[in-house]
């Protein structure tokens, strides 16, 4: 198999940015000597040194606080959360420092906090969460979610170059999936933030999604196609700022929209997308905008429970068929 896995694409993005700009450095737990919990930064410390691959005590609050200070001084810290679940421990420096410095006193905080999010690996309640919507209500942060290897590389490079603080969600369920290997575009592959991507064009229905859920959405679209139903699959890629234009254009075209994501439906970012569609495409719609997310419970551990929790291809397919029949 040729091309890079999702995980290798993340590694390549980090390596290229470390090579390109001396201001860029990595900071987090077990990054250096150990090579990172998922071995993304294996060999990096030998190559770039201890000052550019900083091993820290177990202290997400300290890591992100220090990243804020370094970014204020003009460096470009890329902080790793061993699992994105742990970003809850670093809430304050993100929402009160990183997000607000530019508005409060004109100083940008160009940092990236990245790490593996999402379910599908039986990680249980603390190694499988999707926390993006906690942060969507905080003006000043950008939220990025990569669902493919190419996007992981291109979006991460854009995030590192961005002048604002970016939370970058990777998905451990996708890290090593062989079917997601992709050739990277040649040269400096950067995917601008704020642009959705139509991963599959369609006429009859639209499903808007991001992250791991893209893949069951594509699977559901393939199944519906066999019955002559054409589904457009829009991958949001950036949640803040999100690409209303692409979503609204698709909604006006197909007139029936489902928003699907892994996080619980209640308070999930899908609600924002659905609200915007009804504001801007109401006259074009032939059905209410539907949402499909997880139930309002923590994400459970056992495979059977986790499967029942996460929106899978079968449930997405059923929701789409229901919408089609409306």
């Amino acid at each position, binding site marked *: 198999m040729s091309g890079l896995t999702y995980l290798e694409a993340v590694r390549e993005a980090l390596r290229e940015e470390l090579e390109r*700009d*001396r*201001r860029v*450095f990595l900071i987090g737990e077990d990054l250096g000597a150990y090579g990172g919990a998922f071995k993304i930064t294996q060999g990096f410390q030998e190559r770039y*040194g*201890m*000052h*550019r691959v*900083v091993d*820290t*005590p177990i*202290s*997400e*609050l*300290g*890591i992100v*606080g*220090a*990243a*804020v*200070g*370094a*970014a*204020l*001084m*003009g*460096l470009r*810290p890329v902080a790793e959360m061993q699992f994105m679940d742990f970003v809850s421990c670093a809430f*304050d*420096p993100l929402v*009160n*420092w990183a997000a*607000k*410095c*530019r*508005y*409060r*006193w*004109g*100083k*940008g905080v160009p940092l990236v906090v990245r790490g593996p999010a999402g379910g599908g690996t039986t990680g249980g309640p603390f190694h499988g969460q999707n926390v993006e919507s906690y942060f969507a209500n905080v*003006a*000043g942060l*950008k939220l990025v979610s990569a669902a493919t290897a190419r996007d992981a590389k291109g979006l991460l490079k854009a995030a590192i170059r*961005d*002048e*604002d603080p970016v939370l970058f969600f990777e998905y451990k369920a996708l890290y090593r999936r062989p079917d997601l290997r992709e050739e990277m575009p040649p040269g400096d592959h950067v995917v601008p933030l704020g642009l959705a991507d139509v991963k599959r064009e369609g006429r009859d229905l639209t499903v808007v999604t991001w992250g791991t859920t893209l893949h069951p959405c594509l699977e559901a679209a393939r199944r519906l196609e066999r019955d002559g139903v054409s589904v457009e699959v829009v991958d949001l890629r950036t949640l803040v*700022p999100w690409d209303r234009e692409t979503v609204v254009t698709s909604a006006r075209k197909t007139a029936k929209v489902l928003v699907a994501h892994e996080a619980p439906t209640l308070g999930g970012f899908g609600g924002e997308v659905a609200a915007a569609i009804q504001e801007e495409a109401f006259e074009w719609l032939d059905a209410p905008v539907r949402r499909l997310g997880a139930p309002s419970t923590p994400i459970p551990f056992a495979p059977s429970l986790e499967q029942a929790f996460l929106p899978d291809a079968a449930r997405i397919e059923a929701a789409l068929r229901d919408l089609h029949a409306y």
Partner: protein
Amino acid sequence: MTPPPEDRIGLYRFMLITRDVEERLGILAKQGKLKGGLYRCLGQEAIGVGSAYAMGENDVFGPGIRELGAFFVRGYAPRLVIMQYMAKGGGPTAGRETNVHFGELHPDGRGLISPISMLGSMVSVCTGVALAQRYRGLDAVTVAHTGDGAMSTGQFYEGFNLACVQRLPLVVIGSNNGWAYGTPTNRQFRARDLAARAAGYGCPVMQVDGNDVEAVWAATREAREICLRGQGPVFVEALTMRMVGHAAHDDAKYVSREMLEAWRARDPLALQRQRLLDEGVATQADLAAMEDEVQAMVLAEAEAALAAPEPDPATVIGGVYHGEPSPLAVAGYPWTHGEAAPDGWFRQDAATVESRVRAPFDDTGLWNPEVVPYAPVRAAVEDER
């Protein structure tokens, strides 16, 4: 270590400005001209002034709420603080922020970090500032402030521990003023004092009389030098007393009259004034003239602040993300940094920086405490507690 004569007078002058500005703010508050709370540092002026005065020009300062004097030492005009308290659009944050929540960082790395309310967070942010100073090869340190209460937070612990592990050029000054809002220190921690707590991080620790501005100055100087030798961070506990309530609304009934009297006898301005006279550094006439001059200057600054424009409601949005128009940019503050690091932005090559970072780990393997035992508590101060 005693500061040169002109600096001994300078230290007194900045404390005087600090106190006069606060007195003026108190009057403006009574006239209903301030918005929000007034947080004074009455009795603690020596700490902000002494520590900021001891810094190098290229150092970075991370203040807390009671280091008002540091803003004046670092070159900010009193009118900026007064405008902040009055929520003026012409102020340094165009009405977006309160009290001393403003600052500036220059591309060359000098500056003062605008604090936020969340206690303890300044220390973890300043850990990153100090990391960047070393990374860029700047021969500079960061001085961050904490209170006895703020030191209980997780952010303090995680930030300071990381700084200690990394041997960063960070001086943390802990003002032990006996209370955090209405909570005395014995409900804040069980150890004897902040110095005892700091010793556990494995860094050099000092303790000074926080009402003696020259002692604070000298301790900060020494701490700074330890940091520049690569042996930081350093924790400096400054023993002091908050002579008014937490903010204007707090009558501080929880403090005994005797205790206040004992500390009033050790007022930092009176102490320094007397010392300048006793040691023949200044005459009564010199000081009286200076006091008049400062009072007139502060009054003029307040007039200027009063005349400043209110914020334009249209400026509520903007400046959240890069590239958006911002009233701060319009006001002409040059604080965006360009795309590429200009030549000379890094002052040392990567190999030199790497060897400095690596040295403590290479030399000694895992553990190299280099603990400097902290000085015994001054008896006089101890008795008063």
